[in-house]
């Protein structure tokens, strides 16, 4: 064990930080931007930002060079991630492409697909969304019913997806469709790439409990998709998707965000007076704060351990199955503690002038609950840990 970075890594970190300091747009865009309800001009700014990050060589660090990556080790990737969060750099609008469909294509895509899609993921020329969940299949993803029939050189897609983040501005969707309705449910699914401008696609917004538009329903009415847009083999999409799901689990577990949340909570408590003293000096709240910090730190080292496994090329083991569960619940607990710290101020909506900490927390409190639910609720995560991690028998 050695928690020091090499001189080269330290230099790299300084270089990243300097670059961020000089290049982060000073107006508008900022980190912790949980709002997915973006207008056109924000969207354009975000694309420009991602392009600049890419040009600077800080995007997709672990991708092979031939696809626009930097072929660097995971340590540098984590350094960039950390600095991005720490400097509150704007979110990457193409994150879903970079973290999910990109790595999937690198593993499963053919050369033509890689050449066609990967560069535009990085340049934000094509923004991706994910077509997995359906109204009838939430936890039970494999029961999806969106149908794709092969007609000549095309898939003809009919059905509906739901909880589709970013579908209202995405250019492409990576999508699971049923191509063999007679096979067992995991065996008849294919993974295809759909141009969101195809005729027959209708996107309807789903407003979140926060009041923002983030999700969508996407309807397919005889949407035609070229056969070359199939990733992996026909009817083997479940295997392809599982790779992506694994990337998702890791993406959701980012711990720098969690550390930033804790620091923000601590600052809030220090600035909040209760009974004539700062809340940080209240023995009861101190216990809660310390407990949260301990869990945050534990999660930090838990992720560092997995980072090390990944550097060493080893399977991260049982613990990685718990990342999503632990990470999302911890974030929500941090927000809930902040809500308690604020007392009656927690009752104010984000956009009220009297809101504490610029209204950050009430929104964060709900948003983080959404993350606990999305991508498999805690119930599902526990099933996954038990069944895949501990090999307890399935009970379907």
């Amino acid at each position: 064990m050695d928690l020091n970075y090499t001189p080269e890594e330290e230099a790299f970190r300084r270089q990243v930080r300097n670059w961020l300091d000089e290049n982060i747009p000073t107006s508008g865009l900022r980190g912790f931007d949980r709002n997915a309800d973006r207008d056109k001009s924000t969207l354009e700014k975000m694309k420009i930002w991602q392009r600049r990050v890419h040009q600077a060589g800080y995007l997709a660090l672990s991708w092979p060079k031939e696809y626009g990556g930097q072929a660097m080790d995971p340590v540098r990737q984590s350094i960039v991630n950390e600095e991005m969060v720490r400097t509150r750099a704007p979110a990457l609008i193409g994150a879903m492409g970079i973290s999910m469909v990109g790595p999937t294509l690198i593993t499963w895509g053919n050369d033509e697909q890689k050449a066609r899609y990967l560069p535009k993921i990085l340049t934000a020329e094509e923004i991706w969304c994910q077509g997995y969940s359906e109204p009838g299949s939430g936890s039970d993803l494999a029961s999806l019913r969106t149908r794709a029939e092969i007609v000549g050189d095309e898939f003809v897609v009919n059905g509906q997806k739901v909880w589709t983040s970013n579908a209202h501005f995405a250019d492409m969707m990576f999508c699971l469709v049923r191509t063999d309705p007679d096979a067992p449910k995991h065996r008849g699914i294919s993974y295809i790439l759909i141009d969101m401008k195809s005729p027959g696609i209708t996107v309807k917004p789903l407003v979140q409990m926060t009041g923002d538009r983030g999700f969508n329903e996407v309807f397919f009415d005889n949407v035609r998709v070229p056969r070359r847009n199939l990733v992996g083999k026909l009817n083997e999409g479940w295997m392809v998707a599982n790779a992506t799901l694994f990337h998702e689990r890791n993406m959701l577990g980012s711990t720098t965000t969690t550390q930033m949340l804790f620091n923000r909570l601590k600052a809030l408590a220090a600035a909040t007076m209760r009974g004539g003293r700062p809340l940080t000096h209240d023995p009861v709240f101190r216990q809660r704060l310390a407990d949260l910090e301990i869990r945050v730190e534990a999660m930090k080292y838990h992720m560092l351990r997995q980072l090390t496994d990944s550097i060493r090329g080893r399977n991260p083991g049982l613990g990685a199955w718990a990342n999503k569960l632990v990470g999302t619940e911890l974030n929500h607990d941090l927000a809930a503690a902040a809500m308690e710290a604020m007392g009656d101020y927690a009752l104010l909506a984000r956009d009220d002038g009297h809101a504490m900490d610029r209204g950050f927390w009430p929104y964060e409190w709900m948003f983080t609950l959404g993350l606990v639910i999305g991508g498999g609720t805690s119930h599902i995560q526990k099933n996954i840990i038990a069944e895949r991690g501990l090999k307890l028998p399935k009970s379907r």
Partner: protein
Amino acid sequence: MDFGLTEEQEQLRESARHFLASECPAQKMREIAADAPGLSPELERKMAQLGWPGLIVPEQFGGAGLGMLDMAVLLEECGYAAMPGPFLFSAAIAAYALAAGGGDEIKTRWLRALAAGDATGAVAIVEANDGLAPSDFAVSARTAPAGAVINGVKMFVPYAQSASFFIVAARTGAGARDVELFVVPANAAGVKIRPLKALDLTRRLALVEFDGVLAPPEAQLRGGADLYERVLGAGAIAISADSIGGAQRVLDMAVEYAKVREQFGKPIGSFQAIKHAAAEIVADLEPARALVWYAAYAFDALPREAARAAAMAKARACEVYSRAAGKAVLMHGGIGFTWEHDIHFWFKRARLNESLFGAPPYHRERVAALGGY
């Protein structure tokens, strides 16, 4: 020894549930919530016809002369419906304050109007520093020839926007018990109301500024710090009752959903995780309901135990509500996180209930202090 509702109370509950199911179903609640005033004049009028605003108002002032337990039974149903509007704050808290501390003139003017549904009162207690102790107050009442002059700013005043009058807690000296309650008409000179945007869409909050507001002698309620404590107790019980009703509703919604929503080829209610979440809500909720009933009963019948009972009820009931709402949202999965589904109204209302009139840690400390730990 009888720990149960009377037949009349059972009837009140039944009729309230039916009335609200037909007059304030979720769709109606959403409409009212979306409307700036956050109340429906029509619904308020119908409630007045049923005599609800005057439930705990003495008969001589046009009320039904019932007690806090009756009110709690009714508020449980209002919480079940997540009914928007000033009812809880006016009919349970302001009405109690007037009935307990008002002289005949005040009662004749405001309490009678409140009971008739012609006026609503709002309680203005906490301020920018968010404390409930009189020593936390900057709002002061200075003695003047014509009465008291009130200065300062109150925060988080529920339904100040639509109130006819305020019950204002003001400091009258430096001592821990130097607090008095005043009745101030909303249209009094020097009163300014600035709406706040509330997270809970079924409630309205405002900041109320008192700029040299003159309160004549009869506007000062009798009772000082004792009355103030009692009013806080009434508030705690009212919010607790609302919480129990709300917790019951989120449970009912989740159970209903779990019976019809299918995953993996069977209703999700057949999965233990869902069952156990529902069972945990029941195990929290049922004893908490008994505790709230007890606190409401004690408020009238056992004055020496009333303050502690109210603190117990508030500490428990609003925590139970929040926990139940969180579990119920999770039991719904993705749909529970949408605006389209109704449950978020209860989820947010639970959060408001948790902090209004003192959060659980505050009340637990009170339980300890009043219990002589």
